[in-house]
C-alpha cells in the first residue's frame, strides 16, 4: 500500500441517539481509489460526512497526513479535501460556472470579485469534466448526469488531494454512468487524486477501485485490495444475503426469482 494519507482510529459518529459509526478503524493510502461498500445504514455516507467535516465525530479521531483533522483550520482542510454530496437541492438559479467557482472559495476568495486565475482554473476543470458548454446554463436545469459532472468539476477546481464522492452514479442511466466514471478515472489519472467512493454497485467497485472498505453497523468488516475483500463470504456477511461468484462478478442466490439469482 502507498503512504497512508487518511487514518481513522475508533471513529464514532451519531445522529441524535442513533450511532452511525461505531469505532471504525481504517486507513487510506495516497492516490488510492477506495470503494466504500455496505448495506443501507452501515455508515458509508456518515464516514464521508465526518471526513468532509460536515458532521462532527462523537468519538475517536481522524488523522489526515498524520495530523488530527479536527485541529486543522477548516479552510485548510477544505483546500485538501473535496466533498461531493449525494444529492443537492438548488432553490435559486445559479450558473454552472459559478457553482464550479465555489471550489475556489477555500483558496482565499473573499468579498473581492473572482480573479482571472480562479476563472482559468474553473474553466479548465469544466473542460476536464466535459461540461465546458454548460458554463452559462442554470445548474438547476441540468440533467442528473450533467449536474454530477459539474459537481465533479467543482471538486477539481478545489484542487484538493482527496475527493469524497457519495454515490455519484445513483440514478444515472448506463451511458451517463459510464461517461461519469470514465471522466472520474481520467481526471484521477491526471491528478493522482485520492478518491473515496461510496457506492451500492459492487460491479462498479470491482471495475474502478484499487481497494475496498466494507462496512457493517458502523465498523469495517474487511478492507484491503479489492481482490482480497470482494469475496462471496465477505459480501454475504456485509449484506446479509447469500452471494456467489461468477467469474469476476457476484450474484445473490434467490429462491424466488425465476433465474434463481440476481447479478450484482
Amino acid at each position, binding site marked *: 500500500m502507498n503512504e497512508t494519507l487518511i487514518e481513522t482510529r475508533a471513529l464514532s459518529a451519531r*445522529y*441524535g441517539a442513533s450511532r452511525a459509526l461505531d469505532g471504525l478503524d481504517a486507513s487510506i493510502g495516497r492516490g488510492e481509489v477506495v470503494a466504500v461498500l455496505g448495506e443501507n445504514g452501515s455508515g458509508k455516507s456518515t464516514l464521508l*460526512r465526518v471526513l*468532509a*467535516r*460536515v458532521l462532527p465525530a462523537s468519538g475517536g479521531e481522524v488523522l489526515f497526513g498524520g495530523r488530527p483533522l479536527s485541529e486543522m483550520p*477548516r*479552510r*485548510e*482542510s*477544505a*483546500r485538501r*479535501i*473535496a*466533498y461531493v*454530496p449525494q444529492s*443537492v*437541492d*438548488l*432553490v*435559486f*438559479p*445559479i*450558473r454552472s460556472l*459559478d*457553482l464550479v467557482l*465555489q*471550489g475556489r*472559495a*477555500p483558496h482565499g*476568495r*473573499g*468579498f473581492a*470579485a473572482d480573479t482571472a486565475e480562479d476563472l482559468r482554473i474553473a474553466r479548465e476543470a469544466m473542460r476536464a469534466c466535459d461540461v465546458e458548454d454548460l458554463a*452559462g*446554463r*442554470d445548474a438547476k436545469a441540468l440533467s442528473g448526469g450533467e449536474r454530477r459532472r459539474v459537481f465533479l468539476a467543482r471538486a477539481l477546481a*478545489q484542487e484538493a488531494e482527496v475527493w469524497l464522492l457519495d454515490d455519484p452514479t445513483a440514478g444515472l442511466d448506463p451511458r451517463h454512468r459510464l461517461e461519469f466514471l470514465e471522466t472520474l478515472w481520467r481526471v484521477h489519472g491526471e491528478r493522482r487524486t485520492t478518491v473515496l467512493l461510496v457506492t451500492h454497485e459492487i460491479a462498479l467497485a470491482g471495475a474502478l477501485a484499487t481497494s475496498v472498505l466494507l462496512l457493517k453497523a458502523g465498523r469495517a468488516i474487511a478492507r484491503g485490495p479489492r481482490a482480497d475483500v470482494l469475496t462471496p463470504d465477505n459480501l454475504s456477511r456485509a449484506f446479509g444475503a447469500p452471494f456467489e461468484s461468477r467469474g469476476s462478478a457476484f450474484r445473490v442466490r434467490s429462491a424466488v426469482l425465476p433465474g434463481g439469482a440476481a447479478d450484482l
Partner: protein
Amino acid sequence: MKALPRAPAIAAGLLLLAAVLLFAFSVGGVHLSLGDLLGGQGEAGRTARLLAALRVPRVLLAALVGGCLALAGAALQALLKNPLADPFLLGTSGGAAAGAACAALAGASPLISPAAAFLGAAASSVGVATLARRGGRLDLERLLLAGLIANAFFSALLLAAFSIASGEASRTMLFWMMGSLADATPGKVAALAPYALAGAAVLVAASARLNLFAVGEESAAALGVDTERTKRVVFLAASLLTGAAVAFAGVIGFVGLLVPHGARAVAGNDQRTLLPLSALAGAALLVAADAVSRAALAPAELPIGAITAALGAPLFAWLLLRTP
C-alpha cells in the same frame, strides 16, 4: 442566464435611489421645487426651506428603514435557502413591535420605545433560535416553523395590548402595528443610522460565505465555512437591522420579502452583489412608497404599510407565478 455584473448593478441601484430621493423631496401636500429651495427669494424660499426641514428627515428615515428591511430579508433568504424567508416570517418584527407596545402600555416614556423594540426583537430571535436548535445545531427548517410560532404569539400579545390600551396609548399601539414614518425627526435618523451601518457591514462581509449556502449548509461546511458561526452572525445582524427598523417606523411588511426577489431578477444570486443592491433598492422602494402615501390623498396620509402591501402582494404573486 444573464446577470448584471457587480459594479454596474450597484451603480444602477445608487442612481435609482438618487432619482427616487429627488422625487420624494419634491412630492407631498405642497410641491417643493429644487430651484426655490436653493435660490428662492422671500416667501417662496422660506417655505421651501421649511418644507425641506420637515421632509428631509422623513425621506432619510424611509431610506434607512427600507434598506434595513430589504437587506435583512435578502440575507435570511440566502442563509435559509428559502425565497420566502423574511424578518416578518421569522417573528423578528413581531417581537420588536410587541416589545415596544408592551413598554408603551406600561407607561414607559416614548424614549424607551426603541430600546424595548430591540429587546423584543432579541427575545424573539433567541426564542426562535432556541426552538430551532436540535442536537446543538441550528436546524434551518425548524427555524421557519419556530418563526411561525413566534409570530402567532407576538401578534396575540400586540392585539391584547391594543385592546387594553386607551386614548393616546392606543394610538401608539396602532403605530407599531401599522407602521408609519410620520414621526420622523433628525434625531431618529441619527439614532438609526449606526445600527443600519453596523448590520449592513456585518452582512456584506459575510456575503461570500452566504454564497456557499446556495448549495446547502453541508456543502458550505465542506468548503471551509464555519456554518454554525455564520448562521449565528447573520441571524443576529438581520435581527439587529429589523429591530432597528421596527423601533423607528413600526411594522412595515413586504419590503424584506419583495426587494431581494426584484434585485435577484436583475442581478442574479451572487450575494456579494445582491446584498448591497437589495439595501439600495429597499431604500428606494420605501422612499417611493412614502412619497405616494403623502401625495395620494393629500392632505390626509395613507398608511405606508398599506402601500407596500398593495404594491407587494400583486408583485409577489407575479414573481410566484413566474418561478417555475
